[in-house]
Structures are given as structure tokens and as C-alpha cells.
């Protein structure tokens, strides 16, 4: 990312996400945060804290987790900048987006 004199709010968010291992939790049939912004090359981990089976499935077919029971995790490394929408293949009303900068 190009250095700038005054970081935008989005850049600040990227810095925060990079400082801690980026994680998306699944609770009550929702991905949280629904939109996560990360740096290219970062690995995102999803953790299912719900009592139901869920998946993390790329809308464009780039990645797909197996069925995640409560406590199961899934990780994927995003190497290229872009916007990566995903959903739960068992509950298609559940959506999330990873924005890679």
C-alpha cells in the first residue's frame, strides 16, 4: 500500500486488522464482522460459535470450507487485492465480504 501523509479511516482499520490475527466469528447465523478489510497476504480465520452447522463458501468458487460444527475453524489466505464475497452454503441468507487491499 502506498504511504500517505494522513491515513484514511480504512487504512487505520487495515492496520488494526493486521496487528491481530483477523477473525470472523459465526454466531446466530451471522458472520461478524460482515465486512472485514485486510492487507493482501493475510490469512483470515473463521470460527463457528453457533449451535448450527455452517460453511464459508466463496460466491465465486474461490474457496469453500467443509461443514463447520460448533467450535470448528476454517482459514484462508488472501494473496491478491480485491473484494471477496462469501456465504454459507447451508444458509444462503448468511453473507460476508472480505476486502483485500
Amino acid at each position, binding site marked *: 500500500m502506498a504511504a500517505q501523509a494522513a491515513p484514511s479511516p480504512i487504512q487505520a482499520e487495515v492496520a488494526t486488522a493486521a496487528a491481530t490475527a483477523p477473525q470472523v466469528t459465526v454466531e*446466530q*447465523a*451471522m458472520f461478524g464482522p460482515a465486512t472485514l478489510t485486510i492487507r493482501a497476504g493475510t490469512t483470515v480465520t473463521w470460527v463457528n460459535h*453457533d*449451535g*448450527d*452447522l455452517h*460453511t464459508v463458501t466463496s*460466491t465465486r468458487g474461490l474457496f469453500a470450507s*467443509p*461443514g463447520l*460444527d*460448533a467450535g470448528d475453524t476454517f482459514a484462508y489466505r488472501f494473496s491478491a487485492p480485491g473484494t471477496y*464475497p*462469501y*456465504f454459507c*452454503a*447451508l*444458509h*444462503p*441468507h448468511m*453473507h460476508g465480504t472480505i476486502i483485500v487491499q
Partner: protein
Amino acid sequence: MTDDTSRAQHDHTHGEPPAGGLTRRHALACMAWAGTGLVWTLAGGLLSSRTLGQAAAAPLAPGQSQLGDFSFVQMSDTHIGFKGAANPDVMATLHLAIAKINALQPAPAFLLHTGDLTHSQKAGAFDTLAEALKEVKTSQVFYVPGEHDVFADGGKEFLNRYGQGTTGNGWQSFDYQGVHFIGLVNVLNFKAAGLGSLGQDQLDWLKNDVARLSSSTPLVLFTHIPLWAVYPTWGWVTEDGEQALAMLKRFGSVTVLNGHIHQILQKVEGRITFHTAMSTAFPQPAPGAAPSPGPLQVPAEQLHRVLGIRDVRYVQGQQALALVETPLG
């Protein structure tokens, strides 16, 4: 079914929960039907319901003068492999359901499984179910998949096991003693923001399948996700279900059996009656009665009341269907 229950159900299936959360009245309305465990009887043109206990103890409800020409059982959402607080032992409840089926008199001609045989398609799960269902005293089992049966591999294993004699991705129909049965698959086109769907190819197949039938032929459709809009917010709807139903409007008697939502809901629309079934594994909340549709934990002593199977009896020559609900004790 009473008028009050009909209205309560109508509110649930076509409206959102009240703003600001559930009212006591709304919650009670949910409870009125969320916990009913019933056996359906299609006899003398009357579709009536009894508890499983009543069915085993007294094959005929009071006022019924004759047995149906045949009966069949609907089983749904066995979710083999589920491990959760909502039911720590889904095999135990499955075996209990099988015992209930085997106690039915007369024995069912066949069994319809309306999907979610397995919970997560883990290795051996289909085998476990197949082994258990060998105990069922019936001649044949027909299956349609649920999304839990196909999400990991697009339905390959399911179709390898159960796709023989079907068309497309598992579409099937057969005739039994004058009744035309149609099994539809609405879980293979899940997309982001998507809902259950049949797809144009299957709709075309359905149109051809019923074209040769006289309008007096009773139809029984079975598919996993409800063909009607039970609760789109949770994906409890088949987006092109209306197109399928439009093809069936000329028929005098259409019964639609679904699973997926792990509770009994009924709707009558013209000459089409819709029934969702209980699971043998775990209950789910009434539409909108919880933040999410995940497994519903009920007190252990109540679990068996919200799980079950459905027995359907049919008497040839009767076209009109009427619904009578017998609440549990």
C-alpha cells in the same frame, strides 16, 4: 385445525415478527403449533391427524369407518451425525421413530424421506442411516435430498446412492394405486442470496410429467424445502415454487409434503394443501421466534413431543381433502 390456529399460522408465514420483539400473544401463537407431533391420515377424503401414540394404540380415529386403501410414511431431517445440545443422541430418536413406524397398522406401503438424511455428509453417515432403515417394515424408501446431503459435493454421493431410476438431479415420479407421487429436488441451486429452487429444467420435466394425467388424479408432491413461502428471511422458501404449483392448479387434489423446518406447518391454498414435517433429530424455532433458525433446545422431557414421523392414509375415489387437527394431550 381451528380457525385461530389458521390465523396464527397465516401471521407467521406471511408477516414479520412484531416490531420491538415478540409479543406474548405472538409467542403463544407460535407455541400453539410448534410443539405438535402428529400423524396424518388421509382416509375417506379427510386428512386428519393423531399423535403417534394414538396411532399405535388405535389405528382409526373416532368417526373413521374404514381403513385407507393404503398408507405411507413421511420421515424427514434425520440429520445423521448431528451432535448438539438440541439432541445428544439422534440415533436413539431415529430408532424410536422406526419403532413407531413399525407399530403402525396397517403397515405403510412405503416411506418417503424428505431430505437432510445426514447432518454434514461425514464419511459413513449415509451408511448409518441405510443400516438403521433396514429395520423399517416397509417395501421401499424414496428419497429427496436436503441441502445437508449435497452441500459438500454437489450431490454426487447422494445421487450415486439414491439416484437410480430418477431423472435429472434426482427428480422422480411414480404411481401407486391411482395416486401420482412426485419427488422434486430444490437444494442443488443454492447461491449467495439464493433460496431453494427447482430450476427451469426440472420445471420443464414436471410440466411433461403431469401433462398425461387426468385432472382427477390425486397428486402427492414431496420435496425438502417448502414449496411455499414459509419464511423467506430464513430461506424457508423455494423461489420458483409458485411456477411448479401453477402447473398443478387443474388437479382436484394436491398434497405437498416438505421437511427442512423441523416443525409442522400447514396451509391450504385452493385445492393444494401444504404440510411441513417434524424432524426425527431436533426441532427448530417457529418462523421469526428466535434470532436464527438454528437447532432449538427444549427441555429433555419435551424433546419427543417435537420430533416424529407422519403417517398418511389414502382412500381411492375421494378427491376432496379436509384438514382436522388433533392437538397433543
